[in-house]
């Protein structure tokens, strides 16, 4: 599992605004100023730097040693760790937000990870590549092989992404474990939001990735 991948994945250069990646700005805009944030799979720490520049108290977990050491060398509070095994060490309500960007599909137990995110944080921000993206569908339907895209270039036998899902699948999981979706945004290949006023099936078809702001559901589990 590689947590070094941050959205969008390598292959397509993400669009930038004022030096920051559009998708990072989108995530950062979901975070209230002055809050405490844990970025799980924080990669090179670019998002954490953006958050800290806004006065947000950010912490990170990153699997790759290069990623961690790069972050620590930037003065960020980042530790080496694994989303599947290390989230259990964090106490309940330790953070206002827990961010999991482009990592859910690489975890062994996405459901458990998601539950942990919302145990540790009041809210979670989750992004993942959408396997319902039209390019994916077309490759399986017409090509008859496992899909590969600019952002997900690995072959089936060497990919670290073991639990792919579509936006629709994810929405169903959220309902199943009583997670409330406060905001949902689909991004295109370049990390730009797909227009908001379109129905779900369009997002599931044309969103290359989904970004969700989640909170705990009202009902008891």
């Amino acid at each position, binding site marked *: 599992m590689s947590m070094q991948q941050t959205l969008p994945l390598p292959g397509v250069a993400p669009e930038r605004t004022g030096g920051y990646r559009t998708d990072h700005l989108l995530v950062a805009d979901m975070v209230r100023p002055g809050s405490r944030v844990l970025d799980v799979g924080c990669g090179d720490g670019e998002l954490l730097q953006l958050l800290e520049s806004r006065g947000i108290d950010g912490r990170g977990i990153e699997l790759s040693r290069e990623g*961690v050491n790069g972050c*620590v060398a*930037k*003065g960020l*509070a980042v*530790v080496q760790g694994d989303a599947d095994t290390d989230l259990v060490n964090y106490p309940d309500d330790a953070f206002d937000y827990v961010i999991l960007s482009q990592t859910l599909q690489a975890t062994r137990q996405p459901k458990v990870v998601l539950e942990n995110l919302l145990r540790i944080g009041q809210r979670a921000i989750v992004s993942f590549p959408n396997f319902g993206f039209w390019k994916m569908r077309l490759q399986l339907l017409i090509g008859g092989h496992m899909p590969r895209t600019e952002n997900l270039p690995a072959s089936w036998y060497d990919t670290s992404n073991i639990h792919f899902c579509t936006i629709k699948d994810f929405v169903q999981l959220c309902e199943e474990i009583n997670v409330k979706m406060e905001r949902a945004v689909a991004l295109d290949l370049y990390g730009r939001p797909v227009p908001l006023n379109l129905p779900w099936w369009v997002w599931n078809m044309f969103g290359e990735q989904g970004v969700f702001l989640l909170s705990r559901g009202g009902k008891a589990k």
Partner: protein
Amino acid sequence: MSNVRPIPSPQTQSDDRAHEADHPSSLVAKFGMDQPLKLDCGIDLAPFQIAYQTYGELNADRSNAILICHALTGDQHVNNTHPVTGKPGWWDTMVGAGKPIDPEKYFIICSNVIGGCMGSTGPASLNPATGKVWGLDFPIITIPDMVRAQAMLIDRLGIATLFCVVGGSMGGMQVLQWTAAYPERVFSTLAIACSTRHSAQNIAFHELGRQAVMADPDWRGGRYVDEDTHPHRGLAVARMAAHITYLSDAALHRKFGRRMQDRELPTFSFDADFQVESYLRYQGSSFVERFDANSYLYLTRAMDYFDIAADHNGVLAKAFAGIKTRFCVVSFTSDWLFPTSESRALVHALNASSARVSFAEIETDRGHDAFLLDVPEFLEISRAFLQAAGKARGLKDGGQS
């Protein structure tokens, strides 16, 4: 077997070193009968003294002080020529002009630990009650005792809060003890290649070293100074065994392999045929010139007793509950004395306490000693951490405020 050479005796039987124990070539803070050091063993140690060195200037806010805690066989001479060996300071990769801990930016303090032999009160010091060297009459000391003594020194220097407490190995244990005992007095910490408790394997190695010292007939039940002997062979063996634990299989292989020392064929004897043997003998014999055997017993014992969680009902996270201190924890891949798993356990506890912690594991084949060596990635991380902490502390350029 005529050409067996035992470990050579030291060139000079450490008169210089013995002198340093009471009259150190450094600053000294003396504490009288009215200011005893309250030891964990229940004894009030008084009078006592702390030998220390400082580098750089304390700023007007008194906010730029860094305390360096030395390792088992280190001392206060972190960045100056050593008064006994004549060698450079023991941490010249980390401390000095342009280095991560720069005297131009910070006021740097390093004190000899209590129980040491370079000027702070320890078994090599004179016992004022008897007029003789303390020897084994010196009370058993612990890591918390060392830190308590350092806190008294910091009080004496008029510093309320340390900007950073830094140390590796036994020094790292003191760093962690500082945060557990005086969290409000420590703004940030750099804890390197250390652990919150000494492992069974490490206690075992220490016991091996102590038994080597005590098995030397010249140890004389610890009264070797009175009897004008010195257990240099036992202490050298202890150092040789310990030194192996500071390195790694890969580092030994890279440095020495199976190469012969000044010969091409084996001598079919127990002489030091291999370079690695010769190196270890040198390490052993040079160590005894600068270190007191009893002090070695006391300091290894202090490390053995160290277990922060035990002082907090066995729950490590409780030791750091609500702590505001910024932590940077560093481990090295090839360190098998204080392996990464120990640092990870510490980081988990700090996470559970919601502490602000950075943790990096540095890839190197140089073993435990890597923290003393020129390992660029490690030094760069230390520099960046201090700069970021300095910014949060309001120090200009991570230094003078």
